[in-house]
């Protein structure tokens, strides 16, 4: 995770680098992999 210095010398995640956002990206990727796997299995069954 990218860290930047704030005005109070503390640290916080850079804008747009939220854990929730990263999770969303992975969930979308997992959906794509699951869909590809299911379509491939379907084609093997009738191939």
């Amino acid at each position: 995770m990218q860290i930047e210095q704030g005005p109070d010398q503390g640290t916080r995640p850079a804008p747009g680098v939220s854990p929730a956002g990263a999770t969303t990206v992975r969930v979308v990727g997992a959906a794509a992999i699951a869909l590809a796997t299911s379509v491939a299995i379907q084609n093997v069954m009738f191939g």
Partner: protein
Amino acid sequence: MLAWHAQNRVVVAIAVGQEALHLPLLLGFLTGLHGLVARRGGAGAGWSRLAVAAGATYLAVSALYAVLWIGAVLPAAELSEPSPAFELAWQMHAAAFALTLPALGTTFIGAALAAHASGLTPRWQRSLGVAGGGLLLVAGAGGLAIADGSAWLFVGLPGLAAWIVWLLATGVRLVRARADRPDERRRPDAATGTSAQS
């Protein structure tokens, strides 16, 4: 065909169940992709909207295809020869399948162009999407012939294989993503977490 359905009811049940699974997976993926595209500056948003619309159309036609398949397989075990109703259900099932091809092709092209425009995928995946989706569109143009059992169907099969490869490649890139960095938008490496030097 009747005998095959009478003996392979379980196989059809699995395939129809998979169609039900594809509905949330494809809609989830396409709407998620649209959200990612919007978050990364909106380049390719038009293409991702096209992908969502085409994907919903594809799933609607797929539902019809699955329903007609169920209508063909259920009475198959009790028939000694194909009835007119069985043949009608089977022909409509084949026609619905043929119509899924252009809908899937449009979905594929829209998703591939949107993902590349927003920097989520490299150029080869855009090319794969346009070529594979184009083949599905060309195959879909011969819908009547495909429904009648024509080998024209095989024009679309490489497009279907390309769709599987594209989905897998895109999925792996997204799952391996480090973060959605605003200063690295439009770079595929930013989405995948792979180093530009490697």
